[in-house]
């Protein structure tokens, strides 16, 4: 191992990268082993942990899911009832979607109440709020995909709200639903594309920026 590391390090100077990822000190005030109340600093990490689970379980779900009005529900029903561990994988994606919102909410409150968004961390706070919005978008678009009754009618309400934005409301609605009035085949494929490609792409970029900024600035000091 050591030899391999040295071989790569000699060519690419990976030590600074290794320092950023792993070889740095964790200050006492964020370490629950020293102060139990420091568990509030775990919420961000748990949010990331669930996000990783969401990505993995989502990748497996797309092996069976069909984004089409005829077959979407049937594919989910088949996945849920026939596929080995399908119920577990779908269950993890379903409950993970709720848990990630909870953890992210708690993480936001921790950052707020410790005043960690203050100078010099303003930019990271903004990126964090954008991540929050992307996550809510993922929740909203993912809710339609099983194409069952609750999905259809919740999306209907959501699109009506989007349509009530002054001036550009109708444009947003058509962009999301593919039609002025119909919530159908177009809506399902668009929501699928947004849920699986557009928003995850945005999420990866924002998460990368979020983490790079944390490493550049370090964790905020004790109160």
């Amino acid at each position, binding site marked *: 191992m050591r030899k391999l590391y040295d071989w790569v390090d000699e060519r690419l100077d990976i030590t600074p990268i290794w320092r950023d990822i792993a070889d740095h000190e964790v200050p006492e005030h964020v370490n629950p082993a020293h102060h139990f109340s420091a568990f509030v600093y775990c919420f961000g990490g748990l949010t990331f942990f669930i996000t990783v689970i969401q990505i993995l379980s989502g990748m497996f779900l797309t092996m069976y899911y069909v984004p089409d009005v005829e077959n979407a*529900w*049937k594919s989910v029903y088949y996945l849920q009832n026939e596929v080995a561990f399908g119920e577990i994988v779908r269950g993890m994606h379903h409950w993970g979607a709720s848990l990630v919102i909870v953890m992210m909410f708690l993480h936001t409150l921790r950052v707020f109440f410790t005043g960690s968004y203050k100078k010099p961390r303003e930019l990271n706070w903004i990126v964090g709020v954008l991540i929050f919005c992307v996550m809510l978008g993922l929740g909203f678009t993912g809710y339609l995909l099983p194409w069952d009754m609750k999905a259809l009618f919740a999306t209907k309400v959501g699109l009506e709200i989007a349509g009530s934005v002054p001036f550009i409301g109708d444009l947003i609605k058509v962009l999301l639903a593919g039609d002025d009035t119909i919530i159908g085949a177009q809506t399902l494929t668009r929501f699928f594309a947004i849920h699986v490609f557009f928003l995850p792409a945005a999420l990866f970029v924002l998460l990368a920026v979020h983490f790079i900024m944390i490493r550049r600035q370090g964790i905020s000091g004790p109160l």
Partner: protein
Amino acid sequence: MQRGKGMKFVGDSRVKASNRMPNKPKDYSEYPGKTEAFWPDFLLKEWMVGAVFLIGYLLLTVAHPSPLERPADPTDTSYIPLPDWYFLFLYQLLKYSFASGDYNVIGAIVIPGLAILSLLLMPWLDKGPERRPSKRPIPTAIMLLVVASMFYLTWESVVNHDWEASKAQGQITPKDLGLVPDIEIDENSEGYKIYQSQQTCVGCHGGDLTGVGSNPMLLGNQLTAEEVEEVIRNGRGGMPGGQFSGTDEELKTLAEFIASLKEE
């Protein structure tokens, strides 16, 4: 090439200590505490927290399979919509008179928009160097108020929702699974006409006899004419008796018609 080790940084950051950044966090050396190496000591502890969390998460998944209602049917206008739980507070907000109807834009756009905008601009709304919540009472109070109202609105939404009706309206029926038996219905028969004339029959079992929502399908039933008559008179399970509003003779004809709906 200057390696990462041996350089001086602010705290555990990658920003070089050059005093360029005023209002910077204090260096950790100023807090003579017990710092710990991330790799591998702290990471192991983090993994233990993660493992405990994962166990709870998996238990939740196993104990409560994720819900699936019947396939989307845009023509069903009686369905009461409900968003996922974390949007419930917004959904509830839109029910109040100051945020619905003509004022819908207030509840749907203005209030959530302002909330997200002020969250984004938080570092500039609260510019002071103080970090302790108790030393910046106004932002702390506003945030507590917002969180409390989100909890309150979610709670109001939950207690005002008819969960029983919600559960019933989404049940998967055999019809949804393509399990309708191949039975020819004689639409000219006397029994069929009596069936269609009874609102209570059609209301629950459907004009095509396949059942509405979670109510049973009549096609392919296992009952004899006498048993059907008995069920219509006295009810069974969730079905109340005494709903038939015709003569005894019509009841007999109807019962015979329903009993005849069997696969060959």
